[in-house]
């Protein structure tokens, strides 16, 4: 994806914004009265924004989830928590920089917060491997989850990944085993787990840290069995058919509520989290705190039984 500050479908909005800004500069520079024209263009802009964002296709929402300015895991940690101490390494092989985590305070409540991390600029993208973790990332996450369980600290997971990394090293070190084992172990961790899909939730790479008591998703995030591009490459035999695949997969927050896969949608600031990261973080923090409060009322046995039931009942079939 390019680093320009707008998505393709936002181009008319961006151009109109530019025009208004130019006109304002011109009016001031030349000392000409243009306020009437400016007001009418601003009204037009507002209408255009509303029209664009209230009719987003699934594919456009997927693009928003990948917006180059969208807040990432460490942005949320910085904006929502205090006293974050990042903990590194899986104790077997390496420290996977595509997966971050550590202890932090949500106001006066301690949490273990873990999630995939994407990079902002080219160098960071490479260091973070585009948010695609290797097996050591999943094993680091599990180590931190178990640390949280040992000291009875609730777990918060922020999911944002285009998938677990498909590479030679990842296979050699057991990507499938790492994810399978995480899924099994997370289903039995004896502390509350709140999962928030903040951007992309692609496949086993997301689920490998995504088992919890409550699953929440940001308005413009998505979660599915495969990325639209991956699905298009296999079923349409053409990755360019991703927009069609995005429609077919029903991966958006609205879809997931209807399919009863997520428990709630966290609304985003107008036009997406990237337009106001502080406001987005406030909304996410509030949702996490309310959910943790609700989960704290359950006994551990009740929590685990409910978690098992939650997953046991997922599936649509005829019997």
């Amino acid at each position: 994806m390019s680093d320009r500050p707008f998505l393709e479908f936002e181009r008319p909005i961006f151009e109109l914004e530019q025009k208004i800004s130019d006109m304002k500069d011109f009016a001031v520079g030349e000392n000409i009265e243009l306020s009437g024209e400016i007001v009418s263009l601003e009204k037009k802009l507002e209408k255009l924004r509303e029209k664009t964002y209230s009719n987003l296709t699934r594919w456009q929402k997927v693009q928003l989830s990948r917006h180059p300015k969208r807040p990432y895991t460490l942005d949320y940690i910085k904006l929502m928590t205090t006293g974050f101490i990042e903990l590194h390494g899986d104790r077997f092989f390496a420290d996977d920089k595509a997966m971050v985590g550590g202890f932090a305070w949500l106001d006066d409540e301690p949490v273990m917060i873990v999630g995939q991390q994407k990079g902002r600029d080219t160098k960071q993208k490479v260091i973070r491997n585009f948010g695609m973790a290797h097996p050591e990332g999943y094993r680091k996450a599990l180590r931190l989850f178990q640390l949280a369980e040992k000291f009875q600290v609730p777990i918060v997971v922020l999911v944002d990944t285009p998938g677990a990394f498909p590479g030679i090293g990842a296979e050699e070190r057991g990507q499938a085993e790492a994810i399978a084992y995480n899924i099994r172990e997370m289903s039995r961790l004896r502390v509350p787990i709140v999962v928030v899909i903040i951007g992309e939730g692609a496949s086993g790479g997301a689920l490998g840290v995504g088992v919890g008591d409550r699953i929440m998703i940001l308005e413009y995030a998505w979660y599915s069995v495969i990325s639209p591009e991956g699905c298009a490459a296999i079923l349409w035999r053409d990755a360019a058919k991703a927009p069609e695949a995005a429609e077919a997969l029903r991966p958006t927050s609205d879809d997931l509520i209807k399919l009863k896969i997520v428990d709630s949608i966290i609304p985003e600031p107008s036009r997406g989290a990237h337009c106001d990261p502080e406001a987005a973080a406030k909304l996410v923090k509030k949702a996490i705190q309310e959910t943790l409060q609700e989960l704290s009322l359950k006994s551990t046995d009740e929590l685990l039984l409910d978690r098992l039931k939650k997953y046991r009942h997922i599936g649509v079939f005829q019997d």
Partner: protein
Amino acid sequence: MAWFRKSKEGLPTQEKRNIPEGIWTKCDSCGEVVYGKKMEELLWVCPNCDFHFRIPTQKYIDLLLDDGQLEEYDIEISSLDPLKFKDSKKYPDRIKAAQQKTGKTEGVIAGMATMGGIEISFAIMNFQFIGGSMGSVVGEKIARAIERAIEKEVPLIIVSSSGGARMQEGILSLMQMAKTSALLAILHEKKIPYISILTNPTTAGVMASYASLGDVILVEPKALLGFAGPRVIQQTIGQDLPDGFQSSEFFMDKGFVDKIVNRKDLRDTVIALLRFMWSK
């Protein structure tokens, strides 16, 4: 890109390497030509290179279970189309085609059986049914097989072959990984044995859930295993993959499977293991 060449509809790569028919059979792997009846005796394993041909699920039932007897459960449970999914074909049409091809309602057969006189809960996946893909029904039937093992306190044996989670059911398919793995956690806590048998191929969502969670993982020689498919990896890293990458032998060498077992020895190996792990 050559990978995405449009040839024909559906998933044509899955048609080959079926049971060889005719009087003479040519090995897909080494080209050795073998007399058909001889292949039957050899359980469709190439005498020259040990390549294991894909065989129907019924053959495994005959081969593994006492007297080839399976008391089948959940026969009628079948797929719906919750996403109204359509690519080049409508999902219900794919299901119908798979049902006609296999004579079965879905991609897994499950039930109760005995092996060496030991009662077991058994499930076997069928690669002929939409690439052995796991949707809601496959997940549910595997889940019920695990629950039968827990309730009846008997060992669980699953024979896997799958391209992964079924895309046509979207997120619901992905969640079957969590459903099955969460139940396996209970089986694990109850110290009931689970032997996972991997056959060619076992990849993606199935490999990243119950297939990888056996107390013991057995695998047929030269099967394709792994998380990502070789094409995806090749496209991602932009270089050729090493010889034998993601084969049974590769994963044995890397420490992710317990034992490579020739098809003719599978039954005896499972029974021998159960005698160590299960004395009830």
